């Protein structure tokens, strides 16, 4: 019962204190600590990606420096010329194939066609063989360069061995490990000396090609006239490029240091991802990035109309019963494990798509027919299935958040349901829908198993010259490469660090997409309130 003069009741009870905190404070601090975990995890992710990946640039700089010092770069200049020539040769054989096709369609049997192409073949052969002296020179120099590199690598290994031995205190043994420093300048002298020979070879080559062109055979079929003329122009351009290549060799500076920026560019804009090569390893992001973007693009092209369309239908037109059935069903799709979808792609979808592509009346579709089961399209279709529930759910939310007054006002003015939806509700929800699409993109770019299993895993920048046909090429992706190679690399190696760098890029990319999505959403919220 209350006692009116219970003054002490008002005073603080002597609460237990620990380190100056009451139990309540401590509990509050405990919960607060847990709330910060998200921040800490984000910070730790950044830290460990940077920690494991940051060494990449230093190591890659060294890698590129050796590439230059050992003369591999010098030889690759030569090889570039060789490749240009080979490409022209390949063009000739393509033309022959066309001509042969044309002839046999014109009624000639194989023998007759071959005979008709006799002059052309001789021409092509001579063209192909013209590069042989250069090729010989190239492989001779490649051997020298590769020997320098091997010597350097062996030496580095010995150094490492010696360092370890002396670290273990076995100094005597350490002394016995022989280390012979490589004198790069001296070792590369034969390479530089070969520049004169290269000039001679090129002069002969130019003369040969010019004489070939002047004695070019008449086109075996009339359709080839134009391509052959084009070919002639290209050969002339190629010949006129030869002095430039010589100049490149002339000005090649073995001792020029590789800058940090060069190492960075080699990663960000490198066009090759080549590992465990006996010649030179390249860690270029471009093939992986384009692969990731291409697959994500295909997935979005498929999933945006489906996801947004379904959201509009369910939110605006579906009956209550249909809504109640469809929404959980689409949500349920989001629970499909991606590895199961990837497996489905390998087991079923890839083959189905390939056979569809061979249906004759679908010939007009770019890239059809194709023979690779696993490609951008297969992975893109499955990723679309992953993105649709995300896009659907968020877009439906955005449509739901449009204030009721807007469509009511429109309907009251005599607009139809569809007009109201398309002109009032959809624009009002647009930023929410855009952010839904962005979050869908984030999911798709970060998805691993589907692309690892279904994208075909060919590490090369897809051939965009084929237009939309690029959609059926096999590619490799940033997520896929990490999943595939991480298990096999040596810890601390350049390759290992490169994979962490790819992870870092992926991380930053997803943060950027997320950030953008939230910004758009926030602006929209402000505008509507």
């Amino acid at each position: 019962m209350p006692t009116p003069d219970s003054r002490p009741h008002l005073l603080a009870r002597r609460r237990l204190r620990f380190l100056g905190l009451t139990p309540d404070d401590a509990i509050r601090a405990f919960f607060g600590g847990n709330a910060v975990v998200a921040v800490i995890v984000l910070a730790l992710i950044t830290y460990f990606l940077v920690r494991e990946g940051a060494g990449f640039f230093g190591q890659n700089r060294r890698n590129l420096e050796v590439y230059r010092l050992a003369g591999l770069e010098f030889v690759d200049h030569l090889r570039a010329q060789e490749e240009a020539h080979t490409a022209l040769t390949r063009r000739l054989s393509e033309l022959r194939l066309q001509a042969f096709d044309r002839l046999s369609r014109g009624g000639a049997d194989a023998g007759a066609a071959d005979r008709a192409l006799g002059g052309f073949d001789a021409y092509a052969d001579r063209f192909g063989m013209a590069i042989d002296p250069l090729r010989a020179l190239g492989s001779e120099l490649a051997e020298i360069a590769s020997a320098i590199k091997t010597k350097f690598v062996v030496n580095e290994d010995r150094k490492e061995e010696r360092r370890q031995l002396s670290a273990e205190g076995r100094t005597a043994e350490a002394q016995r490990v022989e280390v012979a420093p490589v004198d790069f300048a001296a070792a590369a002298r034969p390479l530089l000396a070969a520049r004169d020979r290269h000039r001679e070879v090129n002069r002969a080559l130019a003369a040969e090609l010019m004489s070939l062109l002047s004695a070019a055979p008449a086109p075996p079929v009339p359709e080839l006239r134009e391509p052959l003329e084009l070919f002639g122009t290209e050969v002339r351009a190629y010949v006129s490029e030869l002095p430039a290549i010589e100049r490149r060799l002339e000005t090649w500076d073995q001792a020029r240091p590789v800058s940090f920026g060069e190492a960075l560019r080699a990663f960000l804009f490198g066009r090759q991802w080549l590992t465990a090569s006996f010649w030179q390893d390249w860690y270029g992001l471009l093939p992986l990035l384009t692969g990731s973007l291409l697959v994500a693009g295909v997935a979005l092209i498929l999933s945006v109309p489906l996801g947004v369309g379904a959201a509009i239908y369910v939110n605006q037109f579906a009956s209550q019963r249909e809504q109640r059935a469809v929404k959980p069903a689409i949500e349920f799709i989001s629970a499909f494990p991606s590895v199961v979808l990837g497996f489905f792609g390998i087991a079923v979808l890839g083959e189905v798509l390939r056979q569809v592509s061979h249906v004759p009346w679908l010939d007009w579709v770019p890239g059809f027919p194709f023979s690779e089961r696993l490609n951008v399209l297969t992975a893109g279709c499955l990723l679309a299935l992953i993105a649709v529930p995300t896009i659907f759910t968020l877009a439906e939310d955005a449509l739901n958040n449009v204030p009721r007054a807007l469509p009511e006002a429109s309907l009251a003015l005599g607009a139809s349901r569809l007009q109201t939806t398309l002109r009032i509700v959809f624009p009002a929800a647009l930023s929410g829908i855009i952010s839904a699409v962005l979050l869908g993109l984030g999911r798709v770019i970060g998805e691993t198993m589907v692309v690892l299993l279904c994208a075909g895993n060919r590490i090369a920048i897809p051939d965009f010259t084929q237009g939309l046909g690029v959609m059926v090429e096999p590619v490799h992706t940033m997520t896929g490469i990490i999943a595939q190679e991480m298990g096999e690399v040596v810890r601390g190696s350049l390759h290992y660090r490169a994979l962490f760098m790819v992870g870092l890029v992926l991380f930053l990319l997803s943060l950027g997409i997320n950030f953008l999505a939230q910004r758009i959403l926030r602006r929209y919220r402000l505008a509507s309130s």
Partner: protein
Amino acid sequence: MPKTAASSSPIVEISDLDFCYGPVQALHGVNLAIPARQVTALIGPSGCGKSTLLRCLNRMNDLIEGARVARGSIRIHGIDIHGPEVDVIELRKHVGMVFQKSNPFPKSIYENIAYGLRLQGVRDRARLDAVVEQSLRGAALWDEVKDRLHQSALGLSGGQQQRLCIARTIAVEPEIILMDEPCSALDPVATAKIEELIQELRARYSIVIVTHNMQQAARCSDQTAFFYLGRLVEQAPTRDIFTNPANPQTEAYVSGRFG
């Protein structure tokens, strides 16, 4: 000027109280003495600060971000309730509160009443039983619920729920009970029961009630304080306020000309 005309010694003394929600000042220099074991009604139009003042008395405003006492003090038994040695938890045990919307816990009736004691660590079943019965009787609810003490409190009617909340409050043995428009969500019959109950409770508790209903203030309070725009306009024995207000604003309000 407001008259301070408490007949018995004041239990709460509010002096020069300024109260702010962030940049918005809600109370301006309020001086008010609340007498012990009487019913004090706070009346005034919406937004006049009467609820804010009520929530100051047990420091429920602490929970609102940016809310603070800018000047002045509130003393209960002469102790400044914002003083450093005052434990807000002890204060709230001492100053109970009944809310506008009845808010029983989704537990049994018994557990609702026993809640406050359990918080204090009381485990003794016999004592809990005694307090539950006592409190329910005190809130005139015992006869209605004694057979279903262990059923959910959410099964009670609105008026019963509100009386349950009162019973729950008196179970902690407060000295002061704050009531924030306790009948605003109830029908006239349930309201009458609560008013009856308030009359019974005034013998043992000092009650401060915020109400919009002038008849209610007239029927069941001893003292009435009229607030307008965050200022205390007039405080007087209820009879005086309703029959012979000193301030023309008060007169206008109680006669229904605005508000």
